[in-house]
Each structure stands twice: as structure tokens, then as C-alpha cells.
């Protein structure tokens, strides 16, 4: 019981240190003139962040619908059709599973990014310019993760497309004479 309390206290301390140190680290890097620059651009930062959040949500909506259509209306029906015809579509099924896993990651990472962007919007940059700049840098990192996720999804789709070509050239040739 006593060790548990010590462990909880240490964990809480580490979390607090982490939260403060990130803003502090940026504060150490930013010079006074840079802090002034952030403060003078306050209104422009806020409106740009707001516009970006709206356009990103639209982008996420359209991209998500696009991926969903590919997974639900194209990949899944082709896989089941291959299985119903008694053909070997293991590679295609595996890529579909990988795609669905990557899609879930993309969804979660986008939620994190949107939360980070919202956190940056919530900071009053007149009062705390360093905190806002730090929040923007965090959102930038999250945005990079989302971009990487989308690239991974596109790569998986390209792999699936080439696997379909391989499937057609190997499996269909062997079954056609029957």
C-alpha cells in the first residue's frame, strides 16, 4: 500500500514535470523578439488555426469516406468473391487486414491531432505566447503523424492493386482452362 502511494506520487511528479518542461523547453528556445512576434500575430494565428481546423475536418471526412468506400465496397467484396470461387487470395486478405488496422490508426491519430489543434486554439496567445507556440508545435507533430498514416494507407492500397494484378496473372490463368 505504501509502495503504491510512492509509485503514484512519482508518476504524478513525472507527468507534471513533462507538462511543464515542454512549454519551458520552447520558452528557452524562443527569444524575446520571437515571443513578441508571436504576440503581435495573435489574431492572425487564431483565425488561421480556425480555418485550418475546418478545412482539415473536411479533408479528413472526405479522405475517410474514400478509404471506407475502398475497404467496404471494393476490397471486401473482391476478397469474398475470390473465396467463394475457391481461389487463393491470402495475400489480398492480409493486405486488407493491414489496411483496416492502419485505417483505425489513422482515425485515432487524426482525433489526437484535432485535439492538439483545439488545445492550441484554446490558449490565449496575448497572455501565454510561449504556451501557444508550444501547442502549435505539438499539433504540427501530430499532423505529421496523420500525413504519415495517410501515406501508409496509400502505399497499402498500391500494394493491394499490384497483388490483384499478380492474382489475375497467376490464379486466373490456372483456372481458365477448367
Amino acid at each position, binding site marked *: 500500500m505504501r509502495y503504491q502511494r510512492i509509485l503514484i506520487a512519482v508518476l504524478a511528479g513525472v507527468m507534471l514535470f513533462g507538462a511543464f518542461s515542454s512549454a519551458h523547453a520552447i520558452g528557452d528556445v524562443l527569444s524575446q523578439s520571437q515571443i513578441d512576434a508571436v504576440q503581435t500575430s495573435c489574431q492572425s494565428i487564431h483565425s488561421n488555426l480556425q480555418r485550418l481546423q475546418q478545412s482539415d475536418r473536411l479533408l479528413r*471526412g472526405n479522405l475517410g469516406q474514400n478509404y471506407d468506400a475502398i475497404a467496404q465496397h471494393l476490397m471486401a467484396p473482391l476478397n469474398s468473391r475470390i473465396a467463394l470461387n475457391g481461389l487463393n487470395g491470402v495475400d489480398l486478405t492480409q493486405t486488407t487486414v493491414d489496411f483496416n488496422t492502419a485505417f483505425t490508426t489513422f482515425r485515432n491519430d487524426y482525433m489526437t491531432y484535432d485535439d492538439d489543434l483545439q488545445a492550441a486554439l484554446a490558449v490565449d496567445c496575448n497572455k501565454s505566447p510561449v504556451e501557444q507556440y508550444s501547442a502549435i508545435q505539438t499539433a504540427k507533430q501530430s499532423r505529421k503523424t496523420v500525413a504519415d498514416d495517410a501515406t501508409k494507407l496509400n502505399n497499402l492500397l498500391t500494394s493491394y492493386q499490384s497483388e490483384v494484378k499478380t492474382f489475375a496473372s497467376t490464379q486466373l490463368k490456372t483456372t481458365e482452362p477448367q
Partner: protein
Amino acid sequence: MMDVPEIVPEKREYNGRFRFIMMVSASIVIACLLVFLSLKLYDWSGASQLDFSLPSYNGLRKDIKTDDDVNFPSTGAIDQSTIDQFNQQFSAQLKQAKESNGFSTKALDDGSLGINMPDGQ
């Protein structure tokens, strides 16, 4: 013979009224809890981020794409023409997805946000 306690009419009326008030209060509390839970789910699931019915999305709503024309039958024989038909739809969707990936970090650069950082810093 058992003694049955006699309930005074006023007390019976009081009990009935108390129960009714308790029922109404409990219903209100349960309704509030369910509303709170559903709003939390709306937020946690990420649906709130993609809810384009909000008034702030009036101007953007026309840009929302639909996938009504994407359809590939899950039954039937498979031959080269089936694969060609699939590839045609798949390529169109993949092209769209590649074009839509606009999550570059440039959008959050200092210049893009309108921050004029002093030169050389």
C-alpha cells in the same frame, strides 16, 4: 390471527405523492445521465469532429464527397473482365485518396500562420 397495521388515509396519500415525486425526479436524473453519456460518446468517438451539420460548416458542406457510385458485387464468377472492372474503380478511388492527402506540416509553419519571426532566429 395476524395483526394487519392499519394505514391512515392521509399517510397513504402522502406515500403516493412522495413516490410520484421520486419517480419524476428519478426519470429526470436518468434522462440527464443518458444525455450526458451520449454527448460524451459523441465527443469520444470523434463524431463531433466530423459533424458537418454544425452551422459553422455551412460554406464547406458543398465540398463533401459521397461514395454512392462505388460498388463491386461480392458474388459471381471471376475472370479478366471482372478484374478489369475492379481495377477501373479501384484506380479512380486510389487516385482520389492520393490527391486528398493534404496533411503536410507546412500548414502549421510560422509563415503559414502569419507569424513574422525575426530574421536569423
